[in-house]
């Protein structure tokens, strides 16, 4: 993989990036690939912003005393870290960038079914982002990203309204993305591309889209009702007026638990592509991996009450939700098992995307297994609202979703930009991220087990060693994120031309030039084989 054959690698003369120039050609584009890049730019900005809040949190927690920020300021820091990272980075991360870019290409279509709606979704995202930025700049918000009532609806005098409006608006962008994917995947597949020949990336995005359209409207109405409560002082969630604050938690988690799968499922799709390509093997148990995505999406809707074990939710509901939560472990474990089995006896190559994929598998397993601790009713009473929970969901969202995102960006970077990224630097930063991540979040498992609660700016001195480790890890992690940002930009100008298929990967997206032409394929491809037909015999030509 080090040196791709040089002759065939000339960049195409006309491709989607140079077909048109000027700001208008980007702001009014309806090309799914350009919209993907618009999203890539915006979510990177929000990622940096969310990272700044994370930095503030880790700096405060370097010392036991609450010396850097007032507790009110600290509340705003973790709230805005959560709001920005979850709603403005993780939810749109893979679907809106890689998904937008690749879904039409992988199914051999010229574009998504509704290109204008696709562009509209980016404008809606931007509008929601502006509202949230306004909320941040005008003093911030301190309710936690969960907006729990009645604090959010009645008592908090920070800028809840602007944030709520921002998140409400953002939901529509997410709905429109999912909506577009579902119709595109159903109606626009190339001739011969049956459901069981689809890349698993597509299955994962289909499952994600189903969650987006079924779940997002519920959180939209929940947040809208919080807004109405603040404006008109109606009492749907206010116990002082006869309402029930836990009703809000139900409506909120009905979306926000499945939303975890909006973040992780696309990553799983990316991992399936990477693992097959760099093991030169067909996926082990295609239909199991495909259906496990659907199973995760459907089961994900039945477990939301495990966020509410100590919220005074009825005991019986708690028991049902606890048992159902265990079930989600099954399809998740199927995936991990099948990826591992795919690598077994494959000729594994340790390119940067594969390093991210292997990191994902390990960290996701850790995150998933610690999830079982939390879905156990009795254990959760001890661990609820401690750093154990924080560590658990960061293993899933950062160790899982973000590793998959970075792996995917590297894997398809030659397709997106037409150029190769510097492999040595990429492997180095993947390694740094893995080390930094574990150093940041593993100590938090121990902190949580020992009883350190989340969302406080001060803590007893005996927790300091572990917190210092965590902060040190976070600084390593920050370096790990900064390096790709630099070399990916560098490669846009100085990277060698990639050629259509630098990884000798299967899949329709690799059959067209890099970067692809505006309508992706010179003529509609016809599919005659299943996904991932990698042959071990093809090894010789790659050396």
């Amino acid at each position, binding site marked *: 993989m080090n040196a791709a054959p040089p002759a065939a690698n000339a960049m195409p003369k006309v491709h989607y990036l140079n077909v048109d120039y000027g700001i208008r050609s980007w702001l009014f584009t309806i090309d799914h690939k350009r919209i993907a890049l618009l999203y890539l730019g915006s979510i990177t900005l929000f990622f940096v912003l969310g990272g700044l809040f994370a930095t503030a949190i880790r700096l405060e927690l370097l010392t036991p005393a609450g010396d850097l920020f007032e507790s009110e300021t600290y509340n705003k820091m973790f709230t805005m870290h959560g709001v920005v990272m979850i709603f403005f980075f993780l939810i749109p991360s893979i679907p809106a960038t890689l998904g937008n870019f690749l879904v039409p290409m992988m199914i051999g279509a010229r574009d998504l079914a509704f290109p204008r709606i696709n562009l509209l979704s980016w404008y809606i995202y931007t509008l929601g982002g502006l509202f949230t930025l306004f909320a941040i700049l005008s003093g911030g918000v301190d309710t936690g990203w969960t907006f729990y009532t009645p604090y959010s609806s009645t008592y908090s005098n920070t800028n809840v309204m602007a944030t709520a409006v921002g998140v409400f608006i953002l939901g529509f962008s997410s709905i429109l993305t999912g909506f577009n994917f579902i119709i595109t995947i159903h109606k626009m597949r190339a001739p011969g591309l049956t459901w069981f020949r689809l890349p698993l990336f597509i299955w994962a995005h289909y499952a994600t889209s189903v969650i987006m359209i079924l779940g997002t409207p519920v959180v939209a109405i929940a947040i809208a009702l919080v807004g109405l409560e603040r404006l008109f002082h109606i*009492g*749907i969630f206010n116990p002082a007026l006869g309402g029930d604050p836990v009703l809000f938690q139900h409506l909120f988690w009905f979306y926000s638990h499945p939303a975890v799968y909006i973040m992780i499922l696309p990553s799983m799709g990316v991992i399936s592509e990477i693992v097959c390509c760099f093991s030169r093997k067909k996926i082990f148990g295609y239909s199991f991996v495909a259906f496990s995505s659907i199973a995760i999406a459907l089961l994900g809707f039945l477990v939301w009450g495990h966020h509410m074990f100590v919220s005074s939710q009825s005991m019986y509901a708690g028991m049902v939700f606890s048992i159902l939560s265990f079930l989600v472990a099954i399809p998740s474990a199927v995936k991990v098992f099948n990826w591992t089995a795919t690598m077994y006896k494959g000729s594994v190559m340790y390119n940067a995307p594969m390093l991210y994929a292997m990191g994902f598998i390990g960290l996701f397993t850790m995150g998933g297994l610690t999830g079982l601790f939390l879905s156990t009713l009795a254990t959760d009473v001890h661990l609820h609202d401690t750093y154990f929970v924080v560590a658990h969901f960061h293993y899933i969202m950062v160790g899982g979703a973000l590793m998959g995102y970075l792996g995917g960006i590297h894997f398809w970077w030659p397709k997106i930009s037409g150029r190769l990224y510097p492999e040595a630097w990429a492997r180095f930063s993947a390694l740094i991220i893995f080390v930094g991540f574990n150093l940041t979040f593993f100590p938090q498992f121990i902190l949580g087990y020992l009883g350190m609660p989340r969302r406080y700016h001060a803590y007893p001195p005996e927790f300091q060693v572990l917190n210092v480790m965590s902060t040190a890890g976070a600084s390593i992690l920050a370096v790990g994120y900064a390096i790709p940002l630099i070399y990916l930009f560098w490669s846009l100008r100085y990277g060698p031309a990639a050629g259509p298929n630098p990884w000798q990967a299967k899949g329709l997206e690799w059959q067209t030039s890099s970067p692809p032409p505006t309508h992706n394929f010179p003529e509609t491809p016809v599919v005659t084989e299943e996904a991932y037909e990698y042959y071990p015999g093809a090894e010789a030509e790659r050396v």
Partner: protein
Amino acid sequence: MSDQATTLAPQFEGLAQQKESAIFGMWVFLVTEVMFFGGMFAGYTAYRYRFHEAFTAGSDHLNLLLGGVNTAVLILSSFTMAMAVHSAQLNRRRALIVFLVLTMLLGSTFLGIKAVEYSHKFHEHLLPGPAFQFEGADPQHAQLFFSFYFAMTGFHALHMVIGVALLAIMTWFAWRGRFSAEYYNPIEVSGLYWHFVDIVWIFLFPLLYLVGHHG
């Protein structure tokens, strides 16, 4: 074929695929609408079961006559909308425009009656909030009933306003002769939306106006 060139978007292979995608797209969108209203229905169900007396007392303050008339108006508008689609299918441009205008008029009538009802509630101090006043056993939970009443009918009315605006655009397109028997997807899709909004009201009417009224 020149007609096809103007109405077929480049990402589709043919008009049939484009039409299937448009209609399926609207159904998928309506799924999200069902879930949007679903959140309010879930809260309503729980509170109505728990505070049945207060909800009955609150419901008695609604004007059954206006609510019933509005139901009939909305059902009639669904019929004229169906006839608009029918006219489009048969390429009857004049009838299409007439039925679209009729649908908009009926929709506006609904909104007008709704506005009258809202102003009555406002004058009777039944708008939830600090100014809320209610003569009854359990004013606190009656206020919850009115919170749901205003939230649910308010979001429904918002959908009606969007629907009327959508039909206005459709009427303009029809006036410009943009549709034909081969291409009338926007009319069909707008119709699906309009009927959905009608269905929401079909459920809201008994849930809000008919909690009590026994005997």
